[in-house]
């Protein structure tokens, strides 16, 4: 399959301009170009307002570029593609459905029905994210971290090639946040995906990603793309690896010098 040799996601000179209510325009992204190979984990870090979320919405086909081209396996994204799953900052589970029904919701929402096969897939996913015992629970009976695990299971239901995560752990408390990062490492080791992970936490990006795209704000541009040499599998010991701190510091310096300039 030649398509598999193409990058999973590619941006070619992508600019995105948003009209503001006062009639002026705001350039969220300017001339962005990069390519993400299949099954790579890429983190986008940068301060708020650097257009990180815009990158994610462009890949998801929720918005289009003003100029340039966004492609998935070489094909231009013109509408939301099939092989993409999204995890948002908030779990946004539906409070009237139990966890199992929430995980199968994409199926019901897209095709109007849920088959027995999907229900089995959903149960497997719940096991993967450690929520087997909560299939029949309501979202409000779960903690924030558990709700976000359910949201990850929901994003994986249609077995997407690409997983888009928009600051998925930033609404969680610090301890749960670390726990969820290790959880995500485990899930990604079991189910390799092309992951685009938006975050404003540099240590989180260094712990998780194969490559880190450092962005600068207004207009959003790429400051640097950093290869992450930290070996896999990564776990709690990775945090005490000198390389981990070195890389975090380097990226932090990039962000701050760019800002000061």
């Amino acid at each position, binding site marked *: 399959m030649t398509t598999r040799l193409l990058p999973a996601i590619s941006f070619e000179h992508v600019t995105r301009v948003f009209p503001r209510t006062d009639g002026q325009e705001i350039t969220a992204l300017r001339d962005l170009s990069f390519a993400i190979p299949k099954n790579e984990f890429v983190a986008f870090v940068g301060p708020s307002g650097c257009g990180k979320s815009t990158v994610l*919405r462009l890949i*998801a*086909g*929720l918005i289009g570029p003003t100029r340039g081209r966004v492609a998935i396996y070489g094909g231009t994204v013109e*509408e*939301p593609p099939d092989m*993409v799953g*999204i995890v*948002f*900052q*908030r779990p*946004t589970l*539906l*409070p*009237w459905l139990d966890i199992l029904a929430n995980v199968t*919701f*994409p199926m*019901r*929402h*897209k095709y*109007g029905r849920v088959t027995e096969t999907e229900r089995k897939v959903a149960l497997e996913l719940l096991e993967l994210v450690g929520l087997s015992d909560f299939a029949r629970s*309501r979202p*409000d009976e779960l903690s924030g971290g558990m709700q976000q695990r359910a949201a990850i299971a929901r994003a994986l239901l249609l077995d997407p090639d690409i997983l888009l995560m928009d600051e998925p752990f930033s609404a969680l408390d610090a301890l749960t946040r670390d726990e969820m990062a290790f959880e995500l490492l485990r899930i990604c080791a079991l189910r390799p995906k092309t992951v685009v992970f938006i975050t404003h936490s540099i240590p989180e990006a260094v712990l998780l990603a194969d490559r880190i795209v450092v962005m600068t704000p207004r207009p959003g541009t790429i400051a640097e793309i950093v290869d992450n040499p930290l070996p896999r599998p990564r776990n709690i010991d990775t945090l005490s690896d000198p390389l981990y701190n070195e890389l975090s510091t380097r990226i932090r310096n990039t962000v701050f010098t760019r800002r000061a300039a």
Partner: protein
Amino acid sequence: MSFRLASAIRSLRAEPPERRPASRLWLKRLVDRLAPVLTMLGILVLWEIACRVFALPEFLLPSPSAIMRAGLTMSPGEWLGHIGSTLRVALIGYVASILISLPLAVALALSPLLSRTVYPILVVVHSTPIVAVAPIIVVALGVGDLPRVVITGIISFFPLVISTATGILATPDELIELSRSLRATRAREITQIRLPYAVPYIFSALKISITLSVIGAVVAEFVAAERGLGYAILFSTSTFKIPQAFACLAVLVLLSLTLFRLVVFAQNRLFPWSVPREKRG
């Protein structure tokens, strides 16, 4: 003082709530439940005493016992006729306003153009005093249930439209993005995400509207009716049977309260998730 507080805290620690003597807990629950009823009874007793002590004339303020007696002079058949008539108009008007408001609210919430054009009209209709319009509606639509249902509908639909539209627009953006990323149809977006999300909003409006529709039915009966609790009040006062008017009023209040409780019950039964956890019964 501080010592007593400290020992009280210690005793609480030593004895968590569930291990307190069961009888005391049971008593506390009973008091909690009965307190509103007892307050109500207390007011009635005070009212009765005040009427007797100050010998208030009946046309100013009849005593509860006089109201009760006046109520009993009407036959059960008469009562049922009045209650049935008011209830029918209120409920038909209520259901009609629900059937109109829900689709209208969806349309208003999803179309900025429609919202800009129709919303001001709704505000105008809502700002017009219903009591002033009621006679005109009766003249236009003739006698019968139709004008009464229309009057009831007009007064009860506004909160429903506004609250439902607000609920539909309160749906988190992420869920709409999820829906769009799945390329789901607009119809599914509305039925599977937006409308369920609006359920708590819809029910808070349903609770307001049910009492409003009883008011609407009474207003309609004031203008043109030969039966119903509103008509009975008007008729009693015109013949100076003030206790009887009060009896009708009491029944009207009970009717309103019962209907309100039914809506609360329906929400608890049908959509328990939409009720805050601590209020679930």
